[in-house]
């Protein structure tokens, strides 16, 4: 972990500097823009809470991807699982009306199960027919996309509305907002805690990690890889589903709106890979990405920097962090090697030349 912090910091700093350079080259005031970036994401209560709101889905999709990749399941189906989770919660919240005390836990459960079912399809196809989950999950994304679109523009359309969206869920399913702070974030934090413990401390978590590092090793050691694979896929899907569900339960909209998935799922994939599937790092990068995304609106307002800039910035961060992870290691190794070489030379001078011992 400690070894990861330095390259990550180097990568982030270099990427932010590169961003600064791009802004400057394009004629935007770079420092002012960055000031706007941070002040619209951190330096006011509302800004900070917005950042947490944005971080909520990112944390969950990030965890989803980390669990998947970390245990050697290439689940790229977060977008689909996200949508299905959101849709299931919407349908549940419209159809069922119970007090909040019941409604909220049940809705969370529904989101988890729905997401897990969607990834479960891919897991099943893999187990049963050996079909690569990497392709099936990708294709299931498109299918989920069109399927939910069908629902919101047909059977579940709110007839009074102008664009494809469903009616609101019953208020029992709404997560409270306390003074601007969306409690959905707490659900994400709880999920983070549970998944971290599961991942780092539990037996199945150990098997997932072992399978992720070397499936032959874990299989030889007696781990039931097939079962572990299915559980990892289900958990991964459930987390993405929860991310979708919280979009409906949290915030102020409480309905399934077209485009609700936005880029959260893909961002989660990015986050997991810069974090190298480490849970704590996933949480931190989710927060960091959410700062960039939230702040980009501030840059647009204050210094007219197009909001696409945040996309560029994120990609640069990923590339630089990944590159610096590799190159700092190589660099440190080479420096150590050089020192060692020098030491060896110094030693020889001190000791004289005693190495031509015998030559037969």
């Amino acid at each position, binding site marked *: 972990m400690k070894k990861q912090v330095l390259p990550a910091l180097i990568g982030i700093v270099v990427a932010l500097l590169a961003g600064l350079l791009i802004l400057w080259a394009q004629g935007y005031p770079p420092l002012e823009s960055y000031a706007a970036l941070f002040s619209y994401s951190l330096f006011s209560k509302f800004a900070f809470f917005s950042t947490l709101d944005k971080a909520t889905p990112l944390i969950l999709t990030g965890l989803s991807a980390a669990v998947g990749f970390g245990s050697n399941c290439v689940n790229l189906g977060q977008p689909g699982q996200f949508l299905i989770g959101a849709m299931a919660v919407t349908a549940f919240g419209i159809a069922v009306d119970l007090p909040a005390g019941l409604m909220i836990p049940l809705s969370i459960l529904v989101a988890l199960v729905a997401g897990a079912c969607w990834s479960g399809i891919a897991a099943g196809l893999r187990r049963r027919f050996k079909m690569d989950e990497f392709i099936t999950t990708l294709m299931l994304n498109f299918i989920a996309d069109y399927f939910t679109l069908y629902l919101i523009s047909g059977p579940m359309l709110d007839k009074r509305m102008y664009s494809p969206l469903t009616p609101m869920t019953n208020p029992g399913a709404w997560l409270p907002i306390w003074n601007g702070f969306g409690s959905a974030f707490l659900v994400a934090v709880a999920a983070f805690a549970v998944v971290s*413990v599961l991942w780092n*401390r*539990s*037996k*199945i978590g*150990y*098997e997932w*990690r*072992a399978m992720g*590092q*070397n499936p*032959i*090793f*874990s*299989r*030889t*050691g*007696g*781990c*039931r890889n097939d079962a572990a694979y299915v559980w990892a896929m289900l958990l991964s899907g459930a987390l993405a589903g929860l991310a979708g569900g919280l979009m409906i339960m949290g915030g102020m909209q409480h309905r399934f709106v077209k485009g609700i998935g936005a880029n959260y799922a893909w961002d989660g994939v990015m986050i997991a890979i810069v974090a190298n599937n480490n849970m704590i790092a996933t949480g931190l990068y989710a927060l960091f990405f959410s700062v960039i995304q939230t702040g980009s609106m501030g840059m647009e307002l204050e210094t007219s920097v197009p909001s696409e800039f945040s996309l560029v910035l994120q990609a640069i961060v990923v590339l630089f962090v990944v590159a610096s992870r590799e190159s700092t290691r*190589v660099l*440190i*190794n*080479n420096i*150590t*090697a050089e020192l*060692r*070489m020098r030491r*060896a030379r110094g030693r*020889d001078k001190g000791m004289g030349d005693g*190495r*031509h*011992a*015998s*030559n*037969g």
Partner: protein
Amino acid sequence: MQDQFIKMDSITKIYPPDTLALDKVDLEIQEGEIHSIIGENGAGKSTLMKVFYGMAPPSGGEIHFRGRKAKFATPREAVASGIGMVHQEFMLIPSYTVYENVILGAEPAGRFGTLRHADTKPKVEELVDTYGLNIDINSRIGDISVGAQQKVEILKLLYRDVDVLIMDEPTAALTPQEAGELFARLRGLNKVGKTIIFISHKLDEVLELSDRITVMRKGRRVVTVDNRGLDKAELARAMVGRDVVFSIEKAPASLGEIVFEARGLRYVDENGVIRLEGVSFDVRRGEIVGIAGVEGNGQYELVQLVTGLLSAQSGRVFIGGHDVTGEDVMARRKLMCYVPQDRKVSGSAQNMSLVDNAIMTHHRLNPEIEDRCEALLSSGRCRAFTSRLVEDFGVLVPELDAPISSLSGGNQQKVVVGREFMLDTDFILLDQPTRGLDVGSIEYVQEEVVRRRDAGAGCLLISADLDELFSLSDRILVMSRGRVVAELRPEATTREEIGEYMLGAKDAQEDWRAREEVGK
């Protein structure tokens, strides 16, 4: 200077971050000699040759070749100067044919790089004939035996018409017969003027073959001697820096009840090839049963069937009196330890920490490392467990949280062996437990196995190393083409006899007689 064919001067190599693989090594090799290099694992033999061959840039030092300063930046330049190397691990493309492997990197090509085989194929065929290699150049590498693959590696060098052949541990996976054949071939090449550099752990081979011998230890050249009336023990001492016991001393076996039994195992693989047929034998408490055989004759499948990684089409497996035929790996691991042959691939996860590698299998079976909640593992207890393993098995480690890849191969192997032995079961399956280890580590692992046997465990030992089989086993089974073709007692047989069984030269009739003899 003229007579100096190859002269390495003060070669140093540091692998980042701080593995000093070569420490100012000087070495001279004369034209036309067979020069052996011996040394423990990690002594730097391979590295020295890789530096010479242009595969690893040296950190310091100079190389002179034919009196001229040579600095090969890539193997291509080395090859162009007439130097060829057969690596410790074969460098062959399994899905390619022999011919394609031979020409790879020096392909005959016409316009736009189109391959042209018209002239080359006959040339390769001719080489095969001239040197009596006896292989079909159109068969796929994946389909031919290890011995034949070895020949392909040599053929690659002949095709490139090299003058210097570097052979890095070529005999590791060969039968005695195949090794003998290889030596004859090398001598033949030597006669037509080729210089041969030969690397091996096996002192007998080296003494048999070489003109001169260089001993390396811990990245330094210890000594170079002419091979005249040399003594094996002396060489060994030079290698490890202390006296080495060549044969493990062990008390006669005191047999207990049957702890493992295989009954009529048959396995047909995905391609419909019969890999195992009617394999039946048992192992008793207090004995070590060795299995000899040329690689690829069913040992791999046997191990997989015993551990439960594969399931047999027919036949049953009993461990400790339980029928485990339908059980999965974990259920069987309660009853058996298993030291897999490839510690890097199946014995460990190189990027995981020492602790995470040490608790594999124990995590389900050993309540000692559980947390209060049964589904969780206690990290403190896992560490304590690992410390105990490290202590009991004398593993040299920097810290428990370091990735296992930061340990040397020998120490990694100790972790694997220790982990398995700590399962403390009555049946032990060892698959090539000492392959690639140095003399010191081999000694350690072998002694540990004997200790377990004396404590009443039954061991099944699969090994390609006949010396090991002879010194450890109480009984030796020979496998050939998926069958157990002989059951022999080490004190009543010879290497050559076993070799004949391994190659299938002896037939089944004799085999049965041999079995009956032992049965008495």
